[in-house]
Each structure stands twice: as C-alpha cells, then as structure tokens.
C-alpha cells in the first residue's frame, strides 16, 4: 500500500511539473497574447490539480488533506474564471488576435506590389 501510494504520488507530481514547464515555455515562446493565454490557461489548471493530488496522496493527516482539497477546489474555480475575464477585457479594449488570413493578405500584397 505504501509503495503504491508513493509511486502514484510521484507520478502525479511528475506529470504536474511537466505540464507546468510546458506552460512556462508556452508563455515565453508563443507569438501573441491569445495563444500565450491559451498555453497558460490550459496547462495551469491541470498542472495545479496534478501537483495538489500528488501532495494529497502523501498527506500526513486529514486536516492537511482537507486544506489541499479546499485549495484544489478554489484553483478549479478561480483560474478558468480569471482567464475568461482576462480574455474578455482584452477583446473589449480592442486587442485583436494575430489572424493568419491577415498575414496572408499582407504577404500577397507584398508579393504583388514589386511585380
């Protein structure tokens, strides 16, 4: 039982850290605000859940596990809501996403003008 618990907890922590790292690479490397937010918003929730579950499996006493569950619930509520509010505010203040078609037309124009 002990070994199963510790192995599964280690697995959860590993997946969580991997997701965290991929989110961190995403926030740095993606081209515009909305893709960055996608990278963070998608990985953040699952990474937090995985790490917290991994900790729960190691939890020494029930009060710590209860608090972890509270934190988990709070993160599950809060982080999608914050992402939603952020995207909405950005759209409302006319920050437009980088759209592929615009780039293509720009490229076409630049091809056309020299010819």
């Amino acid at each position: 039982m002990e070994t199963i618990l510790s192995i599964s907890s280690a697995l959860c922590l590993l997946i969580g850290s991997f997701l965290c790292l991929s989110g961190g690479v995403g926030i740095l490397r993606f081209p515009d605000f909305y893709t960055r937010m996608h990278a963070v918003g998608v990985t953040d929730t699952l990474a937090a859940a995985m790490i917290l579950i991994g900790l729960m499996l190691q939890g020494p006493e029930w009060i710590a596990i209860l608090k972890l569950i509270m934190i988990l619930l709070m993160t599950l509520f809060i982080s999608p809501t914050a992402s939603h509010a952020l995207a909405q505010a950005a759209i409302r203040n006319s920050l437009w996403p980088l759209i592929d078609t615009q780039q293509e037309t720009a490229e076409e124009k630049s091809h056309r003008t020299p010819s």
Partner: protein
Amino acid sequence: MFAVVMLSGIYGLLSASFFVVMDAVDVAFTEASVGAGISTLLMLTAVAMTGRTEHVTRHKPYLAFAVVFVTGCLLIYGTLDMPYFGSPDAPSHQHVAPRYINDSMQETGMPNMVTSVLASYRGFDTFGEVTVIFTAGIGVLALLSVVRGRESDAEIETLNDSMHEQYLILRIVIKMLIPFILLYAFYVQFHGDFGPGGGFQAGVIFASAIILYVMLFGLGTARRVINQSFIQILSAIGVLIYGCVGLVSILNGGSFLDYSVLSDDALAGQHLGILLIELGVGCTVASVMIIIFFKFAERNEYIQSKNGKST
C-alpha cells in the same frame, strides 16, 4: 505606471515566498494579504484616479535629488553601526528573544509565539499601529468625501443590468466564492492563537471580499448592502475595544494592557485579552480598508461623471 504596479505585485509575492523559506509563517501571511493583495489594489485605484502618465515638468529637480542623495548616504552610514545580519551578539538576541521563546508558553498559554509577542508583550506597539490605520481612514474621509445627491432606484437598476451582461460569468463565480472568503476570514481571525493569522490578516481578507462585491455589483448596489455610517462607526469601535481592554485591566488592578488580571486565572485572562484585542484590530482594519476603497471608487465615479458632462 501600470507596469510598475504590476511588478510590485510580483515583488510582494516573491518576498512572501522568501519569508516562507525562512520559516516565518506569520510574516509571510501578512505579506501575502497586505503586500501582494491590498496594496496593489489601492495603488491601482489611485493610479486610475490620477491618470497613468506624469505631467512633464520644466524645471530640473536638482535640489530634491541632492536631498534624497544626502539622506540615503546618512541612512547607509547609520546601518554601519548595526550588528551583522544574523549575528548572535546582536542586542535583540541577548535578553528579549530568549525570554519570548522560552517563557511565552507558560506566561500566556498561546501555542503561537508570534501572536503572544504581538498582542501581549508588545501590546502598546500594536495599539499604536491600529491608531495609525484609523487615522489613515479619517484622513481619506476628510480629503475625499464627495457630496452626492440621492440616486434613484431606476438609475441603479439600469446600471445593474448593463453590468450584469458584461460580467455575467464573473458575477456568478464570485457569488459562490464570497461566503467562503468571509468564512475563511473568520477562521483566520479566531485561529490566530494556534496557527498563523490574526486580526490584521483577517481584516484584510474580509475587506477584499467586500471589495470584490463592490467591483462587480457597482457602487450603488453595494451602498445599499453596506451602510456607510455603520462602517465608519465600526472602525472607531475597533480602536475603542482595544483601548477599553487596557482600561479594564487598569480598573482590575493591573497596568495598562496587562491581561492577567482580567480573569481569576492568569492564563485565561491572557487568552481573553488577546482574543478581544485581535477582534478590535480586525474590526478596524477591515472597516478602514472598506472605507478607503469606497472613497476612492466614489471619487473615480465623480471624475468620470464630470468628464462625461463636460464633453
């Protein structure tokens, strides 16, 4: 300006992580709630009120720069006299700290040493801090009160409907979260004797829940829920509770803020006293924060309505 506020928020989070690493749980708790949360919030409202960019000044402020430079040099010179960081010979490590660490458990019966130091040994200092916060609230009230006519219900309703469409999801989630935040604030308030927490932190958490409500449901609705004059009275009541505990302990034959005489048993008296003054601190901090935020938001609304009329 905005970026500076943002980065100061990050700094608050980072320094709290420092304190966690150095095992100072209570300090980290305070830094988390005050440094990272409320101060960022109030700075943002202040920036929203004054505008994002500084006016260009013509004269070069050489004199001010010189004064700042000299003061900085004097301060650095002053620190040269201080003992090395973490040195065991420092005066604060010689006689006070061992007494706090060794005897606080027997003298006050509190498992959390920080609370007993803050509320019992250093009761005068904490009283001063509460008074400072109260004074800040009075100052904001005096400077920023706006005379406004009564709003009609229909106006509030239309504003409410437009905001309801704008912030639909946020509103629903926050409606679910606010009871938990308030409950958690009370847990922090009354759990302060045993774990990290206490009046200051609980007050800030409580105020942040109310501020969330104000931001998403509009000032008009919030003014109906929360009575302004009641909060102003509450902030004074907090200071009064603290002072009265001190006076009662004088009447019972001790010195000011000496809780041992409050009850027959010295330990129970200490416990009662600390609980009461934490309550006072919590009341004052929460209500002053709410007052400051309300006044800032009202001022913003006033400026916006004036701009709207003039254009």
